[in-house]
């Protein structure tokens, strides 16, 4: 009987991997690095996690959970509350409808897909802030952010794939 309980605990812990990894990615994105201009163009690790898990295991990263993670980011980050949730949910929506297209495609297709999602996320983020401040803001920070994301995507995807294979298959 104890074995059954242990199995259940083990399974729960494994199922929590996508959530934990996404929250960790959010926190890692907040760590200050003493690089000039880094604070402005923080790599969107969280978006990469979202991209990976929604395509591979959407059952373990529910929209409502993603919404909550976005909310957490806004509360800690001082950004307008709900803005990150909106960006993430829009990305989720797009991904879940295009999921079948991405599954089983080559890595290059995934990469291009992520580039599109990152650009879209940057556009939504920019629009939200421009609306909130009622001014045309400099869009370069979000674009550089998206580019950094695209550049680091292969590394992150590899890491996530290792985690995925190790704990969830």
């Amino acid at each position, binding site marked *: 009987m104890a074995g059954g309980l242990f199995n259940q605990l083990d399974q729960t812990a494994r199922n929590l991997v996508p959530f934990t990894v996404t929250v960790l990615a959010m926190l890692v994105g907040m760590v*200050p690095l003493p690089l000039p201009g880094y*604070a402005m163009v923080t790599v969107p690790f969280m978006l990469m996690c979202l991209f990976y898990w929604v395509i591979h295991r959407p059952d373990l990263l529910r929209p409502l959970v993603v919404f909550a993670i976005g909310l957490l980011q806004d509360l800690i980050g001082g*950004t307008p509350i709900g803005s990150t949730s*909106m960006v993430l949910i829009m990305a989720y929506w797009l991904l879940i409808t295009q999921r079948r297209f991405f599954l089983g495609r080559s890595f290059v297709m995934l990469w291009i897909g992520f580039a599109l999602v990152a650009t879209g996320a940057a556009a939504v983020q920019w629009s939200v*802030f421009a609306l*909130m401040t009622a001014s045309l803001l400099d869009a370069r920070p979000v674009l550089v952010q998206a580019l950094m994301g695209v550049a680091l995507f292969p590394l992150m995807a590899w890491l996530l794939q290792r985690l995925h294979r190790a704990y969830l298959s």
Partner: protein
Amino acid sequence: MRIAAPLWGMVQRFYFPLLILGAAALMMIGHVNGGAVEQARTRVTDAVSPVLNVMSRPAASVADGLEYFRQLVDLHDENARLREENSRLRQWEQAALRLDAENRSLRSLLSFKPDPAARVVTGRVVGDPGGAFVRTVVVTIGERDGVARGQAVMSGQGLVGRIVQVGDWSSRVLLITDLNARIPVVLESSRQRAMLAGDNSDHPLLTYLPPNSEVTPGERVFTSGHGGLFPPGLPVGIVEIGVGGKPRVVPMADLSRLEHVQVVDFGTVGGVAAEATQPGAMK
């Protein structure tokens, strides 16, 4: 449960639009009811700051290591420069001692009442979570260390920002480069007053200068103390002429590599500052 099924179906069908609407509603609520959101921010930041504190240590160590090797490379030049600077500073020290003595004797003649000494608390920067459009940092000192909203935050060289949110053991600093930062300043030699307005770029703008005023690049900029939020005379930066001929200020503190900051308590905050330190300054 049968009755609820169609309703549940509707919710399922419009799940994502509903969530997006929810996010939009939250943004509205945050805009209208700043106080409650501010409370939530404070609590959450307090809870997360220990985690950030731990996570930022390795990054800081790596950065220190890199810095160490970078310094090794130009150790010789640096040494020569420091020698030269040291001899120059010694001359200044003599001048300062002489002026200090003179100042004290003159003050005693005038029975001048000096400003109360400032109290300083030093904290570690553990997060710059704002992303592309918000310039804030989270530091590891809070209410129990005597930090209060509106206090000036300095690094070694100059003004960094001001406290906008205080938790029990963490607080948030709005940097002078943030879009919402406005600081009354004065130019050193012309005594021209101006408003330093952040625009998310690294070098904030000097605004509200009279049209005929002359701004010379290289002039130093200090807080003017108007509005009562900051005491006068805190060093802020150096004037430069930016793109399009707009006067900008290069901050003295390197805001991209803040590791430790000092929160300075200069005593009471009053006047217009009371309004500026009200909740809702950071919506």
